[in-house]
């Protein structure tokens, strides 16, 4: 087993990996940019190495600096988390060459599944159903137009190196194609350093169902069932659950076996996910392989009881998978909500700034994977994920109710977050019925925050602000504010103890 692991990431996922290392008796090394000098992952790691300026290309994406940090600290392995270098086959190869263990798939498999076009070809050969699409990225404008017409609009522009919705655009006619290709290329270039894009048939109102796979270095491959990830905005997941309300035992078995076949065809090892689109008629199509630990991995951990990060580290160190397919089962129901620094009332605009108040939800079956703390300044440079709230309960409805309550306990002030929005999502009848598809948010939440109850909430906010002004209690960081006379007795300080008629 490794004695020291470098975590080449930031935020909640770096914290997650550092905690796993600590439990396994492995020393952890954090790396950080100037914007993250005070970040949580830096506080928790045993050692921390500065990488330089905030932009990711000069810090978390800078291979030389990360390899040098591993060298300088004597780390034997690198965990890339998700995003940044996690699916960069050049980085995996570099680690292999430098004698560092990359905690992820081998570089050849990473390269294969990371090239969406080659991945599709491999899957087709292995008999895995795929979405109709272009076979190549190197097309001229005319060829793109011809391909779009042959596939039939609507089509989807996708980044070859993509993931997380970056570089994706839906195109409904010839006129929209050129600007969508341009925007897709620019976004892909900035997110992945590679501007290749291709076209795929856009399947309307599909569900997004993915299968978690673990493969050891000795040829044993198992799946850990599905995650339903249909609740998305801007093609990015914001809520995931397991099991999927859309699968029965037969379809689950069929998709799981297909996922294992897909990963074997790719020569894949370590943890990875096979994403499928599931249409209204129960047909499923291979979408892509996510060659990394995923943001939503905790829902799988809660229903299967398997610690995926621990397994990743064990597999990378050469261990055999400790279970066979028939040893694995789903138990109960898990839901994850992603708490993003975004304003759902303003089209999910990013919301950077200082967290002035943080209350973390807790209680039975509640897990909060967070990368932030009260007083932390959320930088503008990186992905807006702040934390993930994951709940487990015996069945879906109990989990849904637990999530609704936990979201109310999740309080982040100072920046906008998606917590309140997600509370409305889990309360929506379509979600409660398990019928939500990928068009759910666009259909039902187009103008959030302006509707029912807004007037009353605003007046309550004013009432609270007035009460606060008359009887100050709040202060930055929850501490008493210097210079405030907090103990001056006025009718307002005692008002708080009064009861309006009938309160228990």
């Amino acid at each position: 087993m490794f004695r020291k692991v470098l975590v080449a990431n930031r935020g909640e996922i770096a914290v997650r990996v550092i905690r796993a290392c600590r439990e396994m008796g492995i020393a952890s090394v954090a790396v950080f940019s100037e914007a993250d000098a005070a970040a949580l992952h830096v506080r928790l790691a045993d050692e921390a190495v500065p990488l330089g300026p905030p932009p990711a290309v000069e810090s978390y994406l800078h291979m030389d600096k990360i390899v040098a940090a591993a060298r300088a600290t004597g780390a034997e392995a690198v965990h890339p988390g998700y995003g940044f270098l996690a699916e960069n086959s050049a980085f995996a190869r570099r680690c292999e060459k430098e004698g560092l263990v990359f905690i992820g798939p081998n570089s050849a498999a990473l390269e294969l599944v990371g090239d969406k076009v080659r991945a599709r070809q491999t899957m087709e050969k292995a008999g895995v159903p795929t979405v109709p699409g272009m076979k190549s990225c190197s097309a001229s404008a005319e060829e793109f137009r011809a391909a779009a017409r042959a596939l039939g609009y609507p089509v989807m522009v996708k980044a070859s190196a993509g993931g997380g919705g970056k570089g994706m655009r839906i195109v409904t006619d010839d006129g929209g194609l050129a600007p969508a290709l341009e925007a897709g290329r620019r976004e892909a270039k900035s997110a992945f350093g590679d501007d290749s894009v291709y076209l795929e048939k856009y399947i309307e109102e599909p569900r997004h169902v993915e299968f978690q796979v673990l493969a050891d270095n000795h040829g044993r491959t198992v799946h850990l069932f599905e995650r339903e990830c249909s609740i998305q905005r801007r093609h990015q997941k914001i809520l995931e659950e397991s099991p999927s309300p859309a699968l029965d035992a037969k379809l689950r078995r069929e998709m799981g076996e297909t996922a294992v076949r897909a990963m074997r065809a790719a020569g894949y090892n370590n943890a990875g996910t096979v994403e499928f689109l599931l249409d209204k008629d129960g047909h499923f199509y291979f979408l892509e392989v996510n060659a990394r630990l995923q943001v939503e991995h905790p829902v799988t951990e809660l229903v299967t009881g398997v610690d995926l990060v621990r397994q990743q580290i064990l597999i990378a160190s050469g261990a055999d998978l400790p279970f066979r397919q028939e040893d694995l089962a789903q138990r109960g129901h898990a839901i994850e909500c992603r708490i993003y620094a975004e304003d759902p009332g303003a089209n999910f605009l990013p919301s950077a700034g200082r967290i002035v108040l943080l209350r973390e939800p807790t209680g039975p079956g509640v897990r909060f994977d967070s990368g932030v703390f009260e007083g932390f300044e959320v930088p503008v440079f990186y992905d807006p994920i702040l934390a993930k709230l994951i709940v487990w309960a015996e069945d879906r409805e109990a989990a849904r109710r637990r999530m609704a309550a936990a979201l109310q306990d999740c309080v982040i002030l100072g920046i906008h977050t998606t917590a309140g929005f997600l509370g409305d999502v889990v309360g929506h009848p379509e979600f409660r019925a398990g019928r939500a598809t990928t068009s759910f948010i666009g259909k039902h939440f187009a103008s959030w925050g302006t509707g029912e109850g807004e007037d009353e909430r605003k007046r309550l906010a004013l009432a609270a602000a007035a009460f606060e002004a008359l009887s100050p209690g709040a202060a930055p960081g929850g501490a008493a504010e210097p210079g405030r006379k907090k103990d001056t007795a006025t009718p307002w300080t005692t008002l708080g103890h009064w009861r309006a008629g009938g309160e228990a």
Partner: protein
Amino acid sequence: MDDPGPLAGGGRSVSASAFDFLLDGEVRRISVEARDGALVVREGDRALETGVRRVSANELRLRLGDRSVRVFLARDGERTFVAVDGRQYVVSEPRVDAGRPGAGDDKAAGGSLRVKAPMPGKVTKLAISVGEEVRKNQTLVIVEAMKMENEIKTSIDGVVTKVHAAVGDLVDAEKILVEIEPKAA
């Protein structure tokens, strides 16, 4: 909830105070008095009565009829953040410019439109130049923040008179990016 309507007599009035607040950039004038353990908040001819219990320095429990609403507050300088039912509002004194980021562009004296950055980020594309004629909803600038591209558009037809940003610039929220002279009707 229904407004209790103007409340006349009956209660024990402790004191009344008037407040001018800026709520998400909008000026709101309210008066507040305590009556029988509840707060009566008036705004114009509307009134709202709520029981208030302070749970902690940052949390209040408001009571509306038989419903209980959790409210969280935190001060940051001049601004107070208030969360009601999972929605966050920014409350401040009217003189402080502390509206919701992206609250919108404003009109300068003389009627030209000042298009602002809705959030902090990096300018990755300037789609226009000075003197160019633009149509409503045309993309002017692309600002990237937290790895997402955000297209900043014009809300009017007009002519670009000034560009205050360059590709690669890091801009703050509310920074004026482009000024547009409206097209004469």
